[in-house]
């Protein structure tokens, strides 16, 4: 086929070339190392961390702005390490006060916003200023939930300053916050309202990056597209709807390639660059794609260095039977990296519902019967090419507390129709010829969309095998969340994605005081569970915390407030000339570790 096109297209292309190939854009010089990365959207909304919400905003901001802590790039499960800090923060005995010490060599890049255009040293006040911005109504409080209720006096500060703004006065960044205690330009303490280990994960999120007040004051709204940071790259150009170019920050402090590696990193040879100064590439080019086809073609042409395989191209790159990368792709040296997302996609029960809710053995048996009917393998294979991970419990893969091999024992995973019928009998229903005869239809609320309709059809078919009738209600997402907030839905389909790799983020979904309109949309209440949840919020990693996670998961399996946990897996492909790229979708400041082998025989130059 290709040979035919080769023959037939060469002539017309030669003619077209006369018109079109007068000159083309000059390629990067042989010496320059450029990492080409796609972004599957029209681009980030903003470069300002205080406004940022999406992963695309994160991808842009993380190249220039830095946080106090960052994730260890090659260590799994994920751990934190200092970035702007000289060492990991220490905690007071009561777990409420954290002490921080900044590095002494962090400078903002030179910019006209500074006196004489010379970037100055990053100090304690910059941290407080940047975090206070999250409370400023000017930024629509987009990132405020990260700090809400967390730091002593910060909520009061937000209210006071909000009132000032409403009165037509300026937001006063100099006003004190009780929980922010400056010791020196390099040292400070933060007092929390209660012990909270997740605070450290939160300060590693890009919204809590540190930027200089001079830039915000000088550039105003322009700070959304102009960046003055301390990170490894500088923004050179942002072409809206087309792409972004970041170049190496020549003033970046001495930072070196990681020294801690997982077994996988050593096996893949990512430990070779130890000691190299960061960043390793000269330039990072982000290209925006709103359609998958051009992104895929650009990857195949070697114009971008890594790609999240689009669904439409899955069978071109992978054998659909064994899900392995096709031999011709392996021969080219393409590196395949599956990345499981921190997803918790599930079907939930309203525990306050008259029909499916409740805590008696009969009600537990009914919910278990429903869970046991579902054929997850069929769903996975028929609708998702068998890619997502089906798991037990509420803790997604990659997060400590996730069960080995994704499986708990006992569990409620179907299909097991025999057991389902037994559970229906235990629930007090009549089962005649394998089908329940006296169970009223159950209402399932779920989002609109072709995929949801297909899943629900499959679900209905599975349940019909034991005579359970499902009455689906397809609604807009906004309507669905409203219904959940009002406890209207008996059963519902929803998804939750963890912002940081701590099981607490998901386990909060079943904490009694979080009931609707809070995140506990199951309205699940269990004293033992609640007591354990309050404990894990400040427990250090270790056997005690692991045991608490395990017990909480057991409680959830026993009471069945949800079933069918599922996590998406992204299929990343990386070009053979890219070095040290451990793909992740949890954080995005990794470009500084990536290298490009410009001597690779297939490198397009």
């Amino acid at each position: 086929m290709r040979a035919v096109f080769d023959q037939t297209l060469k002539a017309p292309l030669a003619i077209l070339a006369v018109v079109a190939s007068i000159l083309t854009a000059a390629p990067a010089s042989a010496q320059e190392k450029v990492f080409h990365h796609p972004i599957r959207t029209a681009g980030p909304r903003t470069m300002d961390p205080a406004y940022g919400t999406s992963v695309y905003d994160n991808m842009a901001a993380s190249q220039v702005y830095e946080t106090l802590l960052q994730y260890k790039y090659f260590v799994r499960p994920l751990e934190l390490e200092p970035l702007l800090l000289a060492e990991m923060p220490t905690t007071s005995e009561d777990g409420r006060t954290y002490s921080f010490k900044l590095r002494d060599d962090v400078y903002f890049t030179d910019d006209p916003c500074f006196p004489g255009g010379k970037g100055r040293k990053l100090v304690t006040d910059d941290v407080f200023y940047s975090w206070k911005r999250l409370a400023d109504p000017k930024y629509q409080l987009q990132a405020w939930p990260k700090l809400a209720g967390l730091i002593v006096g910060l909520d009061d500060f937000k209210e006071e300053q909000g009132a000032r703004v409403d009165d037509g006065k300026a937001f006063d960044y100099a006003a004190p916050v009780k929980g922010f205690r400056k010791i020196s330009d390099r040292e400070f303490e933060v007092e929390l309202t209660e012990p909270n280990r997740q605070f450290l994960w939160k300060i590693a999120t890009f919204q809590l990056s540190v930027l200089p007040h001079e830039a915000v004051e000088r550039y105003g709204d322009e700070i959304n597209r102009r960046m003055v940071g301390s990170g490894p790259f500088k923004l050179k150009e942002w072409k809206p709807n087309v792409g972004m170019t970041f170049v190496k920050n020549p003033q970046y402090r001495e930072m070196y390639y990681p020294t801690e590696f997982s077994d996988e990193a050593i096996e893949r040879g990512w430990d070779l660059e130890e000691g190299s100064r960061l960043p390793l590439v000269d330039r990072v080019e982000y290209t925006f794609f709103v359609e998958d086809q051009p992104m895929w073609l650009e990857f195949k042409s070697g114009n971008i260095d890594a790609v999240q395989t689009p669904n439409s191209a899955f069978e071109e790159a992978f054998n659909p039977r064994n899900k392995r990368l096709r031999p011709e792709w392996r021969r080219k040296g393409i590196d395949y990296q599956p990345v499981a997302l921190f997803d918790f996609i599930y079907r939930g029960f309203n525990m306050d519902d008259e029909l499916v809710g409740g805590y008696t053995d009969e009600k537990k048996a009914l919910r278990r019967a429903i869970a046991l009917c579902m054929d997850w393998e069929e769903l996975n294979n028929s609708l998702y090419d068998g890619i997502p991970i089906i798991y037990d419990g509420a803790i997604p893969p990659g997060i400590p507390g996730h069960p080995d091999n994704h499986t708990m024992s006992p569990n409620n995973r179907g299909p097991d129709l025999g057991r389902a019928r037994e559970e229906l009998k235990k629930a007090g229903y009549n089962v005649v010829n394998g089908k329940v005869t006296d169970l009223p239809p159950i209402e399932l609320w779920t989002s609109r969309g072709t995929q949801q309709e297909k899943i629900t059809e499959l679900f209905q078919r599975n349940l019909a095998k034991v005579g359970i009738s499902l009455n689906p209600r397809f609604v807009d997402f906004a309507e669905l969340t409203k219904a959940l907030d009002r406890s209207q839905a008996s059963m519902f389909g929803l998804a939750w994605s963890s912002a940081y790799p701590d099981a607490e983020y998901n386990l909060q979904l079943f904490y009694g005081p979080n009931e609707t309109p809070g995140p506990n949309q199951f309205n699940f209440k269990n004293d033992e569970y609640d007591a354990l949840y309050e404990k894990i919020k400040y427990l250090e990693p270790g056997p005690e915390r692991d045991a608490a996670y395990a017990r909480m998961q057991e409680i959830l399996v026993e009471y069945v407030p949800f079933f069918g946990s599922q996590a998406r897996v992204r299929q990343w492909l990386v070009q053979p000339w890219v070095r040290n790229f451990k793909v992740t979708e949890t954080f995005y400041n990794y470009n500084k570790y990536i290298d490009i082998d410009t001597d690779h025989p297939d490198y397009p130059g």
Partner: protein
Amino acid sequence: MWAYIFRKLLYNVPVYFGALLLVFLALRVQDPVYAYLGPEATGEEVERLRQDMGLDKPVVVQFGVYLSNVLTFDFDIPSWNQKGYTVGEILSRSWIPSLSITVPQIALSTVIGVLIALLSAYFRGRFIDRFLVIAAVIGMSISFLVFIVFGQFFLAALPQEEGWEFAPFAVQGYEHWIGVGGEEGWFLRPSVWAHYCLLPVLIGVVVSMGYDTRFYRAVMVEETGRDYITTATAKGATKPKIMFVHMLKNAMIPVVTRVMSTLPFVVVGSILLEMYFSIPGMGREIITAINARDFPVIQYFVAVFALIFIISVILTDVLYAVFDPRVRLS
């Protein structure tokens, strides 16, 4: 002439006013602030944005502000989705990329379409005519998307993937090829245009060719039956002279109508081409704004599109008179 244009403009004032009112109301059927911020937004966030945008004011006041901004071309309204940019900035940066593909596309497809139609009419009923008609029908029957996908693969990606010597087209992307003053000054880089824009233009031409050829052929065929053609033939004029001198001018009215009816499209751009080739034109901007529920951009872009549409209708009427003296502007 000027009186006619003025009168036409005057007649269209209520039409434009109605269009603006319709857009204004349609965008408020669902709360734009809630739609943008999503169900997880707090009441405080919703209220703040509503105040910032003046959406807490009475509807009449809001419409007055909208109308005043449109009439004074004051588009200094911040975009919700593209922080730090105003609607005016988005408009001013996106019109050139749009015109970069639509102007050459319309010019080429019109010229080629008319020529093919003349050829078809010249050989009416013979093999060439039938072949061209069948080709036009086939061209019309194939989806625009198919042309894009195949064109992008075979003409841009495959030559690069296979390392062919001739790989003149970019798979996607856009670089500034023309500067019209401003910060970058004046410049013209046709090679850059060819690299990024020629392929989408060619695809656009191929797609519109089927429709254009069929339409123009019908026009030409109808003209061949007119009395003046019979007269010219009787007077011994050659067939090429009849077609290219007499017939072509008379056939210009439907041609002008068709071209003018595509004028709004020239500005809006070819959305599909812009999406697939990553051309940062107005079509892509409006789709991005709709997806992101960027209320200010949608509201003011639609106002501009409506204005362009009305102007193109007026221009069509004026051009009728230029091509056909029988049409009187009075």
